[in-house]
């Protein structure tokens, strides 16, 4: 089934999972990639998801190619700490009857431009879309909070309660479901070259069903946690993900649009709704599950929220700090540097000219680099990183806490 749609299992799957479910390992020449090569510019693009280094240790970059090194090191260190294959969720869902069915049907979409194809491929293949980071952060913060006040009778494995692991999986399911549903297309807007209408409608059908399946599984998983407070918090996060698609910063097709009244605050709202909320609320919930007090929960919430902000600012900076190569990052009109630039009174008059014409990426980039917006974005990034680190300051020293700090450093160091 998996092979049918061209997903290569060797990507995000850990040894343990493969053994558990008895899938043949499909690694290509383990050991053929050294960690040295990872940093090699030439291999940067093609290797940014997952490769095995010489000692069979996995290195992953979830958040973009340009910082593969810092980020992948932070992640691979962190995964060892929680002792858990964070890729487990995608595998279990992929192997369910329902999604197997979808996978088989998906062949019909080959040759169309339906986004579901890309999402499915990215499910286990592509590193760009941060597949499993939420789950990892949830586990780390669970572990980092141990020793503060957790009731001792709880059975913890590697410092983490089974319910917290379940929550980590749920956070990934919700994220993936949202990714899939955001890829539903408005059929009437499509042209013939995107694929024939019947195929695109079929793609939508598959996208709706697989997203619904993940959401229903997440809902069942939440109910099984036997904590209605957590159900309420996480349901709120799902609602926020939906709200993110209806904001004024979000145009009808889900791409950002700018007006003369757009401010940095709008950017913050958008970022909170689209990624901060889920991360923050899952961090909060995992401490609720372990019986931590409101104050600790709030600290976890702050960490999650500001990690998401720092990370998004870091992402928004990439087109400016790392000049684009052939298919490099496009500058999004909803990104922080653009908003910061055009929200200045002296630049506002020029906004209409930008919006009226087709966006010339190079010109836009030069315009923004000529001002102070990029520096301001870097400052915001650093500030958010600082708030996140301060939020967990009172947590006892542990390798989990260090890992959480390293993740922040991996995104803020780049904002020098």
């Amino acid at each position, binding site marked *: 089934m998996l092979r049918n749609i061209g997903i290569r299992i060797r990507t995000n799957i850990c040894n343990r999972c493969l053994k558990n479910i008895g899938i043949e390992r499909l690694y290509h020449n383990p050991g053929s990639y050294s960690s040295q090569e990872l940093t090699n510019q030439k291999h940067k693009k093609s290797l940014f998801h997952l490769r095995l280094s010489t000692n069979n240790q996995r290195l992953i970059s979830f958040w973009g190619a340009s910082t593969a090194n810092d980020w992948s090191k932070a992640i691979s260190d962190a995964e060892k700490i929680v002792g858990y294959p964070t890729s487990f969720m995608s595998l279990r869902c992929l192997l369910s*009857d*329902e999604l197997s*069915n979808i996978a088989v*049907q998906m062949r019909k979409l080959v040759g169309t431009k339906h986004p579901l194809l890309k999402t499915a491929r990215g499910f286990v293949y592509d590193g760009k879309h941060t597949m499993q980071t939420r789950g990892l952060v949830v586990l780390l913060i669970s572990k980092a909070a141990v020793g503060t006040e957790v009731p001792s009778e709880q059975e913890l494995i590697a410092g983490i309660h089974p319910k917290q692991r379940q929550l980590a999986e749920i956070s990934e399911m919700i994220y993936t479901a*949202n990714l899939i*549903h*955001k890829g*539903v*297309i*408005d*059929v*009437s*807007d499509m042209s013939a070259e995107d694929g024939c209408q019947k195929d695109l*409608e079929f793609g*939508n*059908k598959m*996208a*709706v*069903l697989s*997203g*619904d*399946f993940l*959401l*229903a*599984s997440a*809902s*069942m998983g*939440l*109910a*099984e946690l*036997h*904590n*209605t*407070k957590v*159900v*309420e918090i996480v*349901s*709120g996060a*799902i*609602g926020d*993900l*939906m*709200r993110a*698609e*209806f*904001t*004024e910063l979000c145009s*009808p*097709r*889900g791409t950002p649009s700018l007006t003369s009244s757009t401010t940095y605050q709008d950017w913050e709202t958008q970022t909170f709704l689209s990624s901060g909320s889920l991360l923050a609320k899952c961090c909060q919930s995992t401490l609720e599950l372990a019986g931590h007090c409101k104050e600790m929960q709030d600290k976890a919430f702050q960490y999650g929220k500001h990690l998401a902000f720092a990370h998004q600012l870091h992402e928004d900076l990439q087109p400016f700090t790392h000049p684009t190569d052939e298919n490099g990052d496009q500058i999004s009109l909803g990104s922080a540097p653009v908003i910061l630039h055009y929200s200045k009174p002296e630049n506002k008059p020029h906004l209409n000219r930008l919006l009226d014409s087709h966006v010339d990426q190079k010109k836009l980039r030069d315009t923004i680099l000529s001002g102070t917006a990029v520096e301001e974005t870097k400052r915001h990034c650093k500030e958010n990183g600082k708030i996140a680190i301060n939020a967990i300051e009172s947590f006892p020293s542990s390798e989990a806490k260090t890992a959480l700090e390293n993740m922040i450093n991996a995104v803020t160091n780049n904002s020098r």
Partner: protein
Amino acid sequence: MTTFDLAYCNSCRSCYTKSFQTPSQSTKYYARQHKLLSRKFESDHSHSLSTATTQTQHLDPFELVRSDLQTLSDDIKQELHPYEKELASVSQYHFDGKGKSFRPMIAMLMAKAVNTHNEKPLELSRNQRKCAMIAEMIHTSSLVHDDVIDDSDTRRGKPSIHKNWGERKAILGGDYIMAMASMALARMGNERIVLAYSQILEDLVKGEFMQLGSKEDENERFAHYLKKTFKKTASLIANSCKSVAILAESTEETIEMAYQYGRNVGIAFQLVDDLLDFTSCENVMGKPTAADLKLGLATAPVLFAAQQHPSLNEMIMRRFSQPGDVAAARQYVAKSDGVEQTRYLATQHCNAAIQNIRTFKHSIEQDALVTVTSKVINRLK
């Protein structure tokens, strides 16, 4: 369990409820049941539904909960007030008070019946009202998604959401309704009820998946269809009946009876829906139908007809995809007694539902729930 046609009920349970799954009761069992059913149909057709309900026919079930239903749409809108205006419009679109409110009505009647049974104040508790509201929210949210999946242009007499806002926003709006329903649900603070409603979500989506595939084996096909019917329609009604019973601090037995009532009525409701898809055109009322066949779905009337006309099996397998299949299938159904058998099966479920609700102490709401069953059978006839 009721004494009514016990063998049949066992069979149902084996395919509808996880906890009672008995793999040994296989397809052959179903085939046998079906023959039994056909024979019963001839000899036993007058079986008691009409007599059981005539005495309470004067009661309008809607009337008993009218005041509760009146505020339903407004209550739902209270839950759906995002800052984003467009999302507010999309998510509130169908809550204009014009829906049938069939599901909340049953939940409310059941709540009152079970309150009386437990010698509690008759009126709905705040949380019981919430249950009815959440049932309607979940139902609507799934309709929004179904309309995209089936590409239906109208819903409740107006353009469906995706016709106005596009497929993408319809789906995201549907998700939003679902998320807000979950939030309202969680705020009640009852873990068991959260579980019951999560089961509904799981059943709805699994039912939708089941609709994608069909079974090779003819006998399995009917069990597959009934299981799908339970998941797609009856689970919501059954679990909301169960939830209002839980909130009334009922015994496990009472909770089970409430659940079974909802399950039976739910299945009957869908069976009648499926047969109306064939009969409403014959009666020359309303628009041309056979919507299910056009979607490639084989429902009870077709499955029964295939027993008498085996050439239908091939069409079922190819999901009526060849030109002329839909018309031919309709003819076969008309020639067979598929529609009557479907109605009879629905009647049986309604009779079982009556038996379920009759285990409660008497109340007018109980009578109304009996009336509901006959309304389910006789609607749009």
